[in-house]
């Protein structure tokens, strides 16, 4: 169905880039960092799934969603509900008025497991839900809006409102969602204790493997005909429409894909960190996730991963030593990434470092981050994210 005019969807430099990232994540970081720091990297990598989705959705298709935290949260909550049910067995909760239901439900005078929670007794259904629930939600939102040609800033504001609604809803419905504390005290996955150090290391590698798989999916989408249409649509939506394509369907697809990617990240987050709370769903985390993609380079799949790692690493080390400086730094980053380097780290790499590496390595220069062949290197003044709204 998705035919590419190239024989293989990865170019040589893409393969080198992915290999370098894989070596960094699988070999270098586990060998150089202690367990504690490695768990931090694992947590950052779960945000990288969101950034990956944003590169496809925002960078390539020009749809800025400020509600990616909702999908991250949906994925995370689905996983957390399964883990919570497993740790609330009848024996473990026999001091409650109603044994066998999660503790926060008991505190809120709920006496039977709500229907919404029933499917999460099964791991298979949970994994399906992690991917499908956010995609379905994204489909409803995307279908309603893109069919009516809502785009650009209106879409951004409405998705932001959705993030606000979701947070208020989760906090308000304490008996069903755990309220502001979220779903905590998660212990085992099918009997396997996820709190030990060795389990966390294994989960880290699972997370890396999933991330690489998702990167491959992203490259596949990018280099397929679909990816070309997305870019064309971002730059000149009307021409694509007049060429006979139904623009809305492509937008809905890429928005759903981004939602599912975010949700996988959310589920991995819950597994590695051991809880899920509304503080990862709302407006502030959602817009921070956009900055990860923007710092890495909104047009670069691999750049987004490095951007996520870098911003989060900076956040952790700043908040440890100078907590009051961090917001200045983050705010400055937002402004700088928009005004000074709109294509992020990948753009800097492409302009300053790759040309000098070229002579040294004989051609395989753009190994870390390369903008798509279809897009000329965008000068800082040209609007890479604007076209959807600038009509």
């Amino acid at each position, binding site marked *: 169905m998705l035919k590419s005019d190239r024989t293989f969807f990865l170019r040589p430099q893409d393969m080198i880039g992915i290999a370098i990232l894989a070596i960094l994540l699988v070999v270098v970081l586990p060998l150089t960092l202690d367990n504690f720091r490695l768990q931090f990297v694992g947590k950052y990598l779960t945000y990288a799934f969101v950034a990956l989705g944003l590169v496809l959705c925002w960078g390539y298709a020009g749809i800025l969603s400020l509600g990616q935290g909702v999908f991250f949260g949906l994925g995370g909550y689905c996983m957390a509900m399964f883990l919570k049910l497993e740790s609330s067995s009848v024996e473990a909760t026999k001091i409650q008025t109603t044994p066998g239901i999660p503790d926060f439900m008991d505190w809120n005078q709920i006496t039977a497991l709500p229907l919404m929670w029933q499917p999460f007794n099964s791991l298979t259904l949970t994994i399906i839900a992690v991917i499908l629930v956010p995609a379905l939600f994204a489909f409803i939102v995307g279908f309603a809006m893109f069919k009516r040609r809502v785009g650009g*800033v209106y879409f951004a*504001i409405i998705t932001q409102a959705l993030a606000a609604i979701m947070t208020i809803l989760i906090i308000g419905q304490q008996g069903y969602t755990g309220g502001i504390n979220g779903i905590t005290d998660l212990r085992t996955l099918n009997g396997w204790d996820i709190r030990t150090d060795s389990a966390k290391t294994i989960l880290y590698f699972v997370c890396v493997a999933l991330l690489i798989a998702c990167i491959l999916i992203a490259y596949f989408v990018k280099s397929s005909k679909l990816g070309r249409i997305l870019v064309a649509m971002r730059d000149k939506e009307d021409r694509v429409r007049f060429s006979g394509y139904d623009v809305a369907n492509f937008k809905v697809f890429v928005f759903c894909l981004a939602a599912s990617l975010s949700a996988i990240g959310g589920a991995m987050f819950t597994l590695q960190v051991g809880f899920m709370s509304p503080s990862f769903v709302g407006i502030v985390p959602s817009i921070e996730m956009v900055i990860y993609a923007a710092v890495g380079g909104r047009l670069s799949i691999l750049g987004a991963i490095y951007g996520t790692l870098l911003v989060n690493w900076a956040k952790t080390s700043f908040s440890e030593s100078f907590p009051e400086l961090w*917001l200045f730094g983050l*705010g400055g980053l*937002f402004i700088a990434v*928009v005004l000074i380097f709109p294509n992020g780290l990948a753009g800097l790499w492409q302009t300053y470092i790759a040309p000098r590496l070229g002579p040294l390595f004989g051609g395989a220069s753009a190994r870390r981050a390369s903008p798509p062949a279809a897009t000329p290197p965008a000068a800082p003044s040209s609007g890479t994210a604007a076209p959807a709204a*600038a009509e």
Partner: protein
Amino acid sequence: MFSDYSLAELGSIFVMQGFAGLILFSVFVLMALGLAIIFGQMGVINMAHGEFMILGAYVTYFTSQFFLNYLPGLFGAYFFLAMILAFFAAGALGMAVEWLMIRRLYKRPLDTLLATWGLSLILQQLYRTVFGPREVGVELPEWMMGSLPVTDMVEVQINGLFVMGLTIAITIAVALLMYKSSWGKQVRAVVQNRVMAGAVGINTEKVDRYTFGLGCGIAGVAGSAFTMIGSTGPTSGQLYIVDTFLVVVFGGAQSLLGTIASAFTISQAQSTMEFFLSGSMAKVLTLLGVVIILMLRPQGLFVIKVRR
């Protein structure tokens, strides 16, 4: 749910909730007016709007402290000076921001959103560092305290009435400025056709700067009014920004009348539901209703045709 109350009680509940809704409406209108000018007329998403409002609130707080300490005799009138100071402080900051940042981004509306979000983070932290993380409240002058009894069961607060009166006055002033003055004509000309407006000799850059300044200045006044009914902290502005954007988008971005109508609808719906449901559910239902209506009618309630 109505059966527990007698008819007279029910009537006064609706009146009281309606009045609470009117105060919320006034705050929405004041915030949304500035935003409607900036977003509707210039197409710029100003995520730092709440922080401009908080600047106005802090200016008001410090003016009240100054009067309390040095001019206690004139304390009853400090608010009027504070409002003017708030307008100029927020307006000046707005013009500086426009000159440094926004004017480079007019062709990239989504990027203004990110940049102004960054600005809002910086301003929040600045307020926290300079003014402290504690919420501050102003002391109201004597004549603004207390409430007026209307019937046995219904009474209205004077500060609420004052904020409402202020809102009406500012709205009329903005409407006159935009639709009757020659400067307003220039602003609307630039919105409708930037190139032609430039060709007939309007300095579009200057118009942009003053428009942005005006929008921020009105936000400052909104913050000033906000101190009359609530306390102010470094992050208070962020609480209102999403609601305000929804108000502006729901009303139809280019229309001042639409902004007022949508602020009225949203605030009344929210405060009436708040009495019967929990506060959070009222908010969820209101926002969800607005989002669904926007999906069905993306252009908002009132539309003005604009050539882009």
